[in-house]
């Protein structure tokens, strides 16, 4: 649940999502759920010339299982806090 909580703190921020089919999408993180499915608003495909399939979208829902990376702005992350939270979660048996 740690990463779910973590991504919740990033709602409203600009992110870039790279999918396992090599498509990259950028947009504002609208929401996440427990499966790390994400919803973006104001989506833009990186390299729209190559992927017109994904043009003309207002927003999109990305299934967590299709995500390879989510790039987040470094300035929005408190790494100390994140490391601390990781340690706590591990100490308490994985937080399950």
């Amino acid at each position: 649940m740690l990463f779910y909580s973590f991504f919740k703190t990033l709602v409203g921020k600009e992110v870039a999502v790279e999918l396992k089919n090599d498509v990259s999408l950028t947009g504002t993180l609208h929401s996440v759920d427990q499966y790390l499915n994400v919803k973006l608003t104001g989506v833009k495909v990186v390299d729209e010339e190559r992927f017109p399939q994904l043009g003309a979208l207002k927003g999109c829902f990305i299934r967590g299982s299709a995500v390879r990376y989510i790039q987040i702005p470094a300035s929005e992350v408190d790494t100390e806090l994140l490391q601390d939270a990781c340690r706590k979660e591990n100490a308490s048996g994985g937080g399950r």
Partner: protein
Amino acid sequence: MATTLSELQGKPVSIITNDGRNIVGNFRGHDHTINVILDSCHERVYSTTAAVEVVPLGLYIVRGDNIAVIGELDEAADTERDLSSLRAVPIKPLAH
């Protein structure tokens, strides 16, 4: 901040499946595994050598397992596009 698909109800959506297909239709329903019901849908087959081929499909249930992206179509922008002049490399299948 749960991610819900309910707000897509009745709207035109464009789905990219795990094998790289693009299915466009009206969103009629979903469940928690992201199984999705689309009505009056069609597939758009992209190619580098020919115009986009539109294959009518009718009413479809797409299994959640097989969905990578659900995009909310911007209808105005979509009708404005000239599919007959669009050329594109097909999207690759998901590689886990």
